[in-house]
């Protein structure tokens, strides 16, 4: 008997699992022609099977959890390591406290099996316009740290995405962590619309982070997923929300601006018209939810 394989086997490649960052960059150097990075592998394995990529080497980050994993807070910053899985993020008390929207998104990605292995860094690096982790990070004003042989650099998360499946990583760089301002008094929420309740791409996702004082929103950020070539910060909507009264009327106005800023396409998953409408509905609902959670009548 031989194991049945429907697809021809994935063409062979070198496999490297460096133990240190130095070894990691060494490995990148040694495979100048083409390497792929694997963390959870939930995107890469599919791409390999579909022959969307044919790397000469696959560099596995699994032994670098010390350097690239972990979730901690120091000096007012919540740092989430690139290798943190969605399951870890979903159950982490610090994330719950400082980045509730990210927790909500993490809890809804894929299935339990996927959440147990897929990583935040991988979700960002794949740069899908529908990446569920991106709108919460953008709304929370997070930045992403990119690490290369010659050092590290930091970008706002929204600047990290440069197009559908395109990001700002240079050859030889990896996503090492995400830094989220850990401000007290900022609350954040996330929601999405989808055809079914689990294991599904979001038709639209929205995240909002804001503080509320004396019946008014403080600095506010509205971020949108799956309605543009990349996850986006809805700038007009965020500006309008900042400083506005926390009322139903304002929620309507901010949501309408967000819908205007969305630039969705029509495809077999949804029409542009419907996606814009969803941005309006979900944004308004999130604002109303924040208002009600703040105890404003």
């Amino acid at each position, binding site marked *: 008997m031989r194991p049945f394989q429907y697809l021809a086997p994935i063409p062979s490649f070198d496999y490297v699992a460096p133990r240190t960052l130095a070894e990691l960059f060494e490995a990148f150097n040694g495979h100048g022609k083409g390497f792929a990075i694997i963390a959870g592998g939930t995107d890469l394995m599919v791409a390999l099977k579909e022959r969307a990529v044919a790397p000469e080497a696959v560099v596995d980050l699994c032994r670098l959890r010390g350097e690239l994993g972990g979730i901690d807070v120091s000096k007012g910053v919540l740092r989430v390591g690139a290798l943190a899985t969605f399951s870890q993020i979903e159950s982490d008390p610090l994330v719950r406290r400082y980045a509730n929207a990210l927790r909500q998104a993490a809890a809804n990605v894929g299935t339990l099996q996927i959440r147990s292995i897929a990583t935040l860094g991988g979700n960002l690096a794949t740069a899908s316009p529908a990446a569920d982790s991106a709108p919460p990070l953008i709304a929370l004003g997070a930045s992403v740290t990119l690490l290369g042989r010659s050092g590290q650099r930091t970008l706002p998360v929204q600047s990290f995405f440069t197009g559908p499946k395109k990001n700002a990583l240079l050859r030889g760089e990896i996503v090492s962590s995400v830094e989220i301002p850990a401000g007290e008094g900022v609350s954040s929420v996330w929601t999405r619309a989808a*055809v079914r309740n689990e*294991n599904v791409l979001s*038709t639209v996702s929205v995240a909002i982070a804001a503080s509320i004082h004396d019946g008014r929103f403080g600095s506010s950020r509205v971020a949108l997923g799956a309605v543009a070539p990349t996850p986006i910060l809805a700038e007009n909507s965020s500006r309008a929300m900042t400083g506005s009264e926390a009322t139903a009327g304002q929620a309507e106005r901010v949501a309408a601006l967000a819908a205007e800023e969305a630039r969705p396409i029509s495809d077999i998953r949804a029409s542009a018209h419907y996606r814009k409408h969803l941005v309006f509905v979900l944004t308004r609902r999130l604002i109303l939810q924040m208002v009600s959670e703040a105890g404003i009548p």
Partner: protein
Amino acid sequence: MTAQKLEEPIRRLEVPRLDALEKALGETKYTTDNVEEDALYVRVVRSPHPHALIRRIDSSRAERVPGVVRIATARDIPGSNYIGYVVQDRPLLCHDKVRFVGDSVALVIADTSESAELGVQEVKVDYEELPAVFDPGEALKPGAPKIHPGGNLTARHFVRLGDAEEGLVRADFVVRGTYSTPIQEQAYLETEAALAYPKSDSMVVLGSMQNPFMVKKAMATVLGRAVPNVRIIQAPTGGGFGGKQDAPDEVCSMAALAAWLTKRPALLAFSREESAAFHPKRHPMIFDREMGVSSDGKITAVRASILADGGAYASLSERVLFVAVTTAAGPYEIPNVHIDGTTVYTNNVPMGAFRGFGKPQASFAAELQMDEAAERLGMDPAEFRLRNILKAGSTAPTGQVLTSSVGLEECLVRARADSAWDAKRRTGPGQGEKKRGIGMACTIHPEGLNGEADAATASVEITAVGQVVVKTGLTEYGQGIHTGFVHIVSKVLGTSPDRVSVVMPDTDVVPDSGPTVASRSTVFGGKAILLAAEKLRGKLAKVASEMLSCPPEVIVFEGDTARCQGRDDGRVGFEELVSECFRRKLNLKEEGTFVKPLPFWEAGHGDLSPSYTFAVHVAEVEVDTETGKVEVVNYTAAHESGTVISRDQFESQIIGGVAQGLGYALMEELILKDGIIRNKTFLDYHIPTAADVPHIRTIIVEAPDDFGPFGAKGVGEAGIEPVAAAVGNAVYNALGFPIRRFPFTPERVYEAIEERASRS
């Protein structure tokens, strides 16, 4: 013949699923788990065009790909290239033209799947594209591209009862509407697979299938006299739902052709994408329907025309249309009925058999229109149904007088009570953006092959060590039928279920019991097995009577023993009794055959089946009117299928049917553009997850009839049939207006709400 009265309800004898443990442990060997080292891989060269002439097939480059052993085209087929269940219109390998995207053109046979894959890319087919037609309405217009030599009409059927014209005129009002249904994909876990082994003068094929004897017949056609004997073995099969009714004929024939040409074992197995492209789906149908109603709530007439898109080949279209046409009026007393149905060829993927077989479509149109009429009447839809519902003694809309075992009314009454229907209808949809709705739908399911004669043969044999072996051509592909057979035999012989085993179907070993389709296995196979087991019991009783000195008529079989009724003194163990029979050289092998004669059907009416199954479902939904998302929050399914043989399995069939029906109702829709399937994988063809299916309350109504074993009727399909309609009516109740097209995806529901708002 009358139903056997059981001393105790058979359901108390619960038997665990025969295949549960090995499947849970991952020990089950499916077709692709049996690939031997020397097996060749077969891949199919498929048409990229929906309609094109084949000018030339150049396989010279492909033949030079390392590892490619042979390329096969239609020319290499030793027998006939044309197979098909109703009409032999589908070439195994196209030679003159292709009729849909995915049509099979050639086989690449290679040492590895890698070589086969490369070989497929190197087969150069020179096509001359032809104009194509994708819309069933366009297909019959003059000047439409002609897909088959005889034109694009596949079949027509009709029902005539009374005078529908007159009935509509006499009605106090008439409701009219156009209803349309989507293409549904069977989405079974295991995609198609066949492994063929050539022998010196025969061919053995192991494969995933519902009907080994149909595969045998197809293969005899394709291999012709080249192979005098073909033997088909059904491998454990991971789902079928009708999709493996006729597709395995082709898959197995292709593997066999490859094996015959190369004299080596050959495997053909499909990826998910190929499976989606290849096998026949659930027909999309359009119903133009009108129903006359009198002011006292009686239906006076139904007139409907049905147009089905059958895709590129006939498959089961003609049969599916017949079922849709004959159930289109619904399970109601309607004196005047006029139904016309047409199924046509298009250049879409073929449509064919799928659990429910035309009834989910017919039920959607009929049941939505029932609620529309109820609204006009200002009457509760449950009440309106009760005024018209079929009962024992009713004349069905096909003209048949139903004599007994009509549990529909009780299903409705109990589903209504258990779902708190009256209270919830009174409460109404509520005020917020999320509206609640509750809806009901009924179904009627004729037993056995529809409009055809039907028969099944099975054998039961007792071995010298007291094992009971059942042989039937009816296949287990996930529905649990073999466990049902164990129930029946162990009940008749009074043995523990452990003694009874069911042989995996193998055409050299088991009798032909007809196809495993149409919810017929329990009724036909079960009855054939029951008859065989009763003959054996008769023989055993005779021997036992001599051993125990009492008349054979009073011998009771239970607890693995035989004893005389009313006497406690003597009993003989089952094994001892069997040994005695063997000592006496008695033959302990019996066959049973159960026959349903050709039903009477003429001039659009007749008696379709001696027996019918019924169900009434109630769905409760919450509709988010801003996003259009429909959440099914409660579900009640009341079924009448005669006597229930196993409650556990009966309920799991219903629950599975409802879950698959909820997929059909809410999200499943194969999207084609210019004949190309846009959602071939589960990324975009959404089936429900556990998170989308609510708790399903099942209600079992028992109305035993005189037909099946112990008065049982079939249950495999009824569970899916009324689901889309029940959900549709619940959405109607929530929104206040009907949406006559589904699935009720968030966007479609939102669009309907938006359109309604813009009109008012």
